């Protein structure tokens, strides 16, 4: 009697074919237009920073897994994505040690000590960023970073200029079209607005980013900045400069929707995106920092478990007519 050894497992016996590798790969692909533009604009140093950020992030994950005696999880590209997003937020002239320290904090403190992929309460790339920004604020002065570059557009970082000079004196200096097309000083992956928007739309269509978060995030930026602008146009800039400069679009499409640190229910997603954006504009207009994206999103990562408890009632819960 030929008795085959069959595979026995539990239902469901189908899967839609998606995987963590696919998801992270798609996010990396979506980020490429903005990165390639940054490399073309800022040259080889930008490529160096991105490559170092990705490779060091992956190495930190391997080391942490060896120390923690866990199986290697490098294959799901999660750390590669963290490194990539982290590199996108750095100026092209960042020194090597800063990149390596940043990815150490991002991967090890931001992700691995919480238990690895999926367990991080904060966006790991932002944890690394916040650490660097608070420790070496001088390195994030984009005007100083690119002082040796010769560009054919206004060689000013828009948000820093806005902070130091006020809205009135920079009005007309930054045309919205120029900002969208990347004619501004900034981090490697954050200047090319059009590329970020295209990448974001790709991710939304592929189902890897929940549309509620970017949409409410952008709405929050526009509404809050517009309200400030109405109250005092000489002091506060209009919504367009806020939307297309700094880390705003990167935050809307790549940082805020990070799976593990953002809500999953509809109303919480809308609240999360909107209020994270409001917090960013508050920091920019009233706070100390010229760009509050990093801290604004981190703050609402913290609120995620709380606001995600606003959820629809489960079927048959609290029904007692049986």
């Amino acid at each position: 009697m030929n008795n085959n050894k069959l595979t026995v497992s539990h239902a469901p016996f189908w899967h839609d074919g998606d995987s963590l590798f696919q998801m992270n790969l798609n996010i990396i692909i979506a980020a490429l237009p903005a990165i390639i533009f940054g490399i073309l604009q800022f040259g080889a140093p930008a490529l160096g920073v991105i490559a170092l950020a990705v490779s060091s992030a992956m190495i930190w994950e391997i080391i942490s897994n060896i120390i923690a005696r866990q199986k290697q999880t490098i294959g799901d590209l999660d750390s590669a994505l963290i490194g990539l997003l982290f590199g996108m937020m750095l100026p092209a002239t960042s020194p090597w040690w800063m990149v390596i320290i940043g990815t150490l904090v991002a991967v090890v403190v931001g992700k691995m000590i919480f238990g690895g992929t999926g367990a991080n309460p904060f966006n790991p790339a932002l944890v690394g960023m916040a650490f660097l920004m608070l420790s070496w604020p001088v390195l994030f002065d984009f005007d100083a970073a690119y002082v040796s570059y010769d560009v054919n557009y206004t060689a000013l970082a828009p948000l820093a200029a806005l902070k130091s000079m006020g809205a009135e004196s920079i009005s007309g200096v930054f045309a919205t079209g120029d900002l969208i097309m990347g004619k501004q000083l900034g981090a490697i992956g954050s200047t090319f607005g059009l590329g970020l928007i295209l990448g974001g739309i790709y991710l939304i269509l592929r189902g890897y980013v929940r549309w509620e978060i970017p949409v409410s995030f952008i709405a929050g930026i526009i509404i809050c900045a517009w309200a400030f602008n109405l109250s005092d146009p000489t002091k506060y800039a209009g919504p367009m400069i806020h939307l297309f400069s700094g880390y705003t679009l990167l935050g809307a499409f790549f940082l805020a929707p990070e799976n593990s640190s953002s809500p999953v229910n509809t109303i919480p997603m809308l609240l999360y995106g909107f209020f994270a954006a409001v917090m960013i504009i508050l920091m920019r207009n009233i706070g100390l920092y010229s760009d509050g994206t990093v801290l604004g999103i981190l703050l609402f990562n913290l609120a995620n478990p709380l606001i995600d408890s606003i959820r629809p009632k489960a079927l048959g819960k609290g029904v007692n007519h049986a």
Partner: protein
Amino acid sequence: MIKRSFFTLTRPKLSYDSVEQNPKKPESINIPSNLTLLLNEPLDNTKKLLIQKGDSVEKGQKICLYSDSAEYVIAPVAGTIRVIDAYIDALGNTSTFLVIKNIQTQTSDTKAKTYDLKEDIASADRYLRNLPGAPPFKKLADNKTKINTIVITCADADLLSTTSQYIALNSMDKIKTGARILKNIIGAVKICITVPQDLNIQGEFDSIQVFRTDTTYPSNLPAMILKNHLNMILPAGKTPEDLGVCFICAEAAASIADAYETKSAGAEKIVTIIGKQGTRYRVKATIGTPLRKIFDLFSIHINDQDRIIIGGPMQGISTYSPFHPVEPGMDTVIVQDRDEIPEICDNACVNCGKCVRICPANIQANILVRYLAADQYEEAADKCDLESCIECGLCAYVCTAKIPIYQYIKLGKHELKKLRAEA
């Protein structure tokens, strides 16, 4: 296997298959020389068995293990008992299997034993539990709540299956007769019938209420029919019977009609077989026929590491033996090639929320799976609605991290039951 489409702005849709236009008659398979019957009662060495190896049985004879047994099987053929042994099912429950050597000729002309059938629930429960389609007479006889609605399901609950639709198309009159008999037996007030939207069924239904069901999974599951058509919400942890609603499949209704007409129990079950390339076959096999015989009939070759699924792709169970017999409730058998089997991982949940958005019962599966992975079953039930799950399997189907969420949920429900029984 239906894969995710390239663009998935909305959640994925899984559609029920509809039965083909003018379906062919099912292939008949000769009654094999040995039939296996599963009896849902474990062997007990302290008690004296009523049956012995070598005993001869009549076609239609009721077989019990012990004098005080509540469980029985009906012999589908005349023959002799060759084996009585313990059987462990996929969930680890112990029961018994019997092998009967068939001594009747290949034609099924042998007269089946007739019963003294009356139109009451006790009589039906005494003889008709093993009818093709597995009518839930045991549950109905035990049930404390009065059943006032019967729902005959001509819409198959799981994907790929078309058995119920085929029977609805071919034996609607018998189903209606069966429904009327059921109404008398149970004393129900209302009879309803579910028919898939795109199934073309003509004829009068008289007092039977017809529900046209949607073609998107999981709209044919009992909880969804209650919600969409009967305006009842199934309370967490309850069964439809607790609400006074009983679901009976089309084949059971048709075989009840036959049984009351002939005063004997039928033993021929219609099964939809899905081969490795997704080819659909339909077969009429005697209950107890090993699946292997059916695969041979359709030249489906079973290799090591393939998977044989009893039931649909979302809710079925996989068996460990190609000799698993045809059972009364077995509508579909799927053979999955080893290269087609999707992998399962022990990844942690990444909180992407696909399961939450697809869940028809609004369960926070992303949080629930964390409690279940940590064996916190009571908390899972209190905080994350473990018992609201209607067991459709969609969460695990879409899981990016390939976590077996549905398996965690079934295990959680099982453990919770055990915990509550001990308390």
